[in-house]
């Protein structure tokens, strides 16, 4: 489920298996990892340091390069807010 046309990620409405090919808004996408229910996966490649959008808004930035079909979570994105160093 893609929540907003500008989004970089979509949300799994059921658990999805690694290697599974799914259709998001009519486009085929092969998942590179298992996606637990309600977790996010990338719809297209996201470069390290770029903002990651869900609900049409930035929810953080990519820590590393993220490929289409990757699981997107705390291992590869990070908040831009309320940081000690900020």
């Amino acid at each position, binding site marked *: *489920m893609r*929540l907003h046309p500008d989004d970089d990620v979509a*949300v799994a*409405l059921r658990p999805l298996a690694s290697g599974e090919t799914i259709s998001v808004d009519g486009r085929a996408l092969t998942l590179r990892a298992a996606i*637990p*229910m*309600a*977790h*996010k996966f990338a719809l297209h490649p996201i470069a390290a340091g770029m903002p990651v959008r*869900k*609900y049409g*808004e*930035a*929810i*953080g930035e990519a820590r590393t390069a993220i490929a289409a079909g990757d699981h*997107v*979570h*705390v291992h590869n*994105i*990070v*908040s*831009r*807010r*309320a*940081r*000690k*160093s*900020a």
Partner: protein
Amino acid sequence: MADSFLGFRRAGGNVGVRNHVLVLGINGLAGAATRRIGSAVCGTVTVATPYGRGQVGPDAEIHRRQLIGLGRNPNVGAALIVGVDRKALDAIAGEVAKGGTLVETVALDDVHEDALALTDIGLKKAAQLVRHISNQRREACPVSALRVGVECGHSDATSGLAANPLVGKVADRIVDGGGTVIIGETLEWLGAEHLLARRAATPAVARALTEAVARREAYPASLGIDLLGNNPGEENIRGGLSTIEEKSLGAVAKGGSRPLIGVLEHAQAPTGTGLHVMDGPGYSPESITGFVAAGAQLVFFTTGPGNSYCSALAPTIKVSAHPQTPGRLPEQIDFDGSAILTGGEAADATAARLYAQALAVASGTATWGEILGEGDEVFVRVGPSL
């Protein structure tokens, strides 16, 4: 008549959805005696602060505001207020009575520090109050009389996708009916404050909101603490939430879409109707007590994997849209919103069901939390004791 529920009309003009006798302990020195009185008299709800002495400045003020606000909550038909010294007791009791609550008091001073004598007098007074207010009957009242708090706890990604937007639709309906909605948890506006500020009724409200978020964001940073690893918390991360921004964008949806009328301090009652935000903690027990002390008679509480906490004074309607949670916790989750995600029901139809259930609860239908006694009230402190 517009949408209505069956409530208890109070002397002050407010409407209760419950008819509690509150046994309110205002000083931790009398906490055990307060609880003893409450447990001895059926039909009472006990709230006993562990604090009440040695507090100064803003910390004393916020404590006083919470005590008075809980005593004035429209769900309280009558209150027995239990204290230590007469002067402090009468000061609180006088303010509670001004709100229209029927008040009786008992102080350790009156019984020469004998907690058993205090119990004896207190339980007789509480019993008299229970009998007295049991004469009150419910009457049809308009939705405009409702003041509702919206909270989320143990959120996961289904909260932001479905449960919070669902509560948001009901919040809009309550505001459109002339009622009041309060959303708190300042930290969970972080990353969504620009969206809330856009809805502010005046530039001053937008500024107050933005400043509240900045203060809350600066506080952990000033202590050298990184919010990462604290919020989102463990349950949030397991449920698929990666950052505070993501959690906030989902969390603010439970406030609906109507204009933002005002920014309240913790436990501060709004002076008008419509959507308000309360600048307060994200910890649910403290946050909800802030709403209830501001006069909320009803609380919506969304959760992903479950969360049993409830207000002691305001029926707390638990909403989950996780496909497994309502089935796993049938005696905790009051409303199953998962049909939105599994495709079985249109969101507007689910919202209409939740709205109808809220009016039923306001009219007397019991929540699971009430049946199982999960309710509590938890006081915020903002400074050390002297």
